[in-house]
């Protein structure tokens, strides 16, 4: 049946592989935190346990172990104890099964460190800021980068001679150092832009225009610390693709035929753009905790620092929850790019039909 629809077969096949990757990713995310010697319950007890009596600590620890499903429970919920009364730790496998069950139900469990807060709550509150900061940067960077790259490739004159080394330089400054320089120059030496926080601390969330204008005022420096690196990256990618396309026979033939110049540029742009999509997929994928460094330097709200603290505190559920989201984002982005390329690029489509 599928022979007739090569595109659908291609999508299903790559979809299958991506799903397999997703499953393996989930299990790796599950196993990785548990490899470490330290486990979160010990850490929480160590942090708050000083000065308490033995007994209180014992009870507190068992409470946590039960809450996070790390111990075996007999049918009526009491902890199964071994010979000398120590709670028997539930096997890795049973934890894994319960973890998968929770994943399918969409309940990512409660975080160890910020105890009563659900992982999904933590994520929802912070993820909007991650998107707000990185989505425009990626999309704008991609569009502008490609346009500039194509122009640089086509008009090899002064524009390319000036633009290319500059974008290369911007790309090679590690973006956190770039953030620090921006903060130092525009936040402290010339205090034009605020360098701390997502919005002024004297206002609170509201749909009012005043909040959005203030938030965008605070938004400028973190955005500028991410945007040029993306812009430069895409521009360079597009420029080398553009130069390669310009060297091809069909462009020379088109110019021999006297086809209009901007039409030729659109050919170059279109054919060079598709490989650039894979780059976008990667960036879109890492949006969840991606702007970690911008968050630390500008104290910008977002999920990055939460994930970092979770990992340092071996907070299993938060790590698994966020890693799950990152996995979904990356695989979804890659998969959609695969589909888009399959639909829009005849070369690939023909390849599919043949393969």
């Amino acid at each position, binding site marked *: 049946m599928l022979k007739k629809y090569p595109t659908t077969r291609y999508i299903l096949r790559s979809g299958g592989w991506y799903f397999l990757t997703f499953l393996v990713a989930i299990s790796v995310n599950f196993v990785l935190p548990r490899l470490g010697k330290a486990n979160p319950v010990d850490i929480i007890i160590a942090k708050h346990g000083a000065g308490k009596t033995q007994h209180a600590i014992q009870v507190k620890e068992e409470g946590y172990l039960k809450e996070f499903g790390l111990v075996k429970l007999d049918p009526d919920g009491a902890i199964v104890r071994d010979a000398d009364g120590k709670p028997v730790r539930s096997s890795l496998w049973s934890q894994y099964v319960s973890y998968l069950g929770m994943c399918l139900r969409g309940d990512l469990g409660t975080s160890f460190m910020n105890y009563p807060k659900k992982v999904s709550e933590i994520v929802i509150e912070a993820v909007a800021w991650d998107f707000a900061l990185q989505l425009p940067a990626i999309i704008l960077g991609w569009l502008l980068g490609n346009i500039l790259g194509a122009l640089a490739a086509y008009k090899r004159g002064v524009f390319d001679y000036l633009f290319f080394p500059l974008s290369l330089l911007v790309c090679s400054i590690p973006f956190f150092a770039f953030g620090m320089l921006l903060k130092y120059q525009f936040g402290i030496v010339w205090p034009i832009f605020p360098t701390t926080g997502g919005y002024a601390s004297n206002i609170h969330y509201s749909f009012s225009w005043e909040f959005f204008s203030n938030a965008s005022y605070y938004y400028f420096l973190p955005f500028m610390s991410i945007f040029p690196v993306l812009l430069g990256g895409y521009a360079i990618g597009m420029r080398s693709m553009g130069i390669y396309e310009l060297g091809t026979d069909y462009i020379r033939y088109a110019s*021999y035929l*006297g086809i209009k110049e901007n039409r030729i540029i659109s050919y170059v742009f279109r054919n060079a753009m598709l490989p650039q999509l894979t780059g976008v997929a990667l960036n879109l994928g890492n949006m969840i905790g991606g702007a970690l460094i911008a968050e630390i330097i500008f104290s910008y709200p977002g999920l990055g620092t939460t994930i970092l603290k979770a990992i340092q505190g071996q907070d299993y559920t938060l790590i698994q929850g966020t890693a799950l989201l990152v996995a979904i984002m990356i695989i979804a982005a890659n998969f959609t790019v695969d589909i888009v390329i399959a639909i829009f690029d005849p070369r690939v489509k*023909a390849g599919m039909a043949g393969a």
Partner: protein
Amino acid sequence: MPIFEVKDLRLHYLLRYGDKVHAVDGVSFSIEQGEVLGIAGESGCGKSTLVNGCMGLFIPPLCPTSGDVLVEGESLMNRTPKDIRENVLARKVSIIPQGAFNSLNPTRKIKNFAADLINSHEKGGDKKAIYKRLHDRFELLGMETDRVLNSYPIQLTAGERQRSVIGISTLLNPKLVIADEPTSALDVTTQKAVIKMIFDLLERKIFSTMIFITHELPLLRHVANRIGVMYAGQIVEMGTAEQIVFDPRHPYTKALMSSMLSAEPDQKQRKPVTIDGAPPNLVKTIAGCRFADRCKETREECKICKQEIRIVGERLVRCQYAA
């Protein structure tokens, strides 16, 4: 009045440190309506530079030194690239590129690519009319026009792509068509098919005058009326097809013919002889004959005095000792 004339054309490439490569150094010929001129020569003798010159495409680093190119009396020299692009290219002079089978934009359907050509040269015209016009032209080429027009180049066979390129190049009925090695990198059978196709296009008057550039001399015998042999940027011999193939006078043409495998009955048993050495470096101007150091019958004077082209046995030869 010749439809296309080249008068003592000199072209050079500007290199990085100001020195110039005189790829074409004094070429002149003229073509009448309905005539096919063949140009043969080793690779690197300036054939493709000549093609750019004939089309008036002087994009840096190529720039004209002197001489003139006339299409129906209209000169192509010192005109703005925009003017050339609008009035000359594809209207008066059109080209069938070298690697024709991958000269089509892989991500656009043939009909859209052709429509771009039409829209670039003629104002507007709705899609239906353009499609009909393409349909008629491609019918002439003997292909399943509906399938070809609506498919991507990658879905066509090499032959179909070749024919589409020829169809597109001749769409606006150009006065002169330059075929730049249409048969290279093709196996012999498709070569035959392409030649046959070019012939019946000529008969059907889709285009009449043509310059056929190749390095396979025997092939030219079937196609061209007149053949010019180029070496190191100059025409060394020009005459009718029979004269050049069967009775070459210039040492280079003789050597070229002897180094060719030819399917002709009387040539079958001959073993091809290679010409040793390589074409001279065209950066510095060469006083004497450019073929002197590779020529078998070279003499002292060859290297010193300048070889002018002169009539020997009703053909033009650029060698003073040619019999």
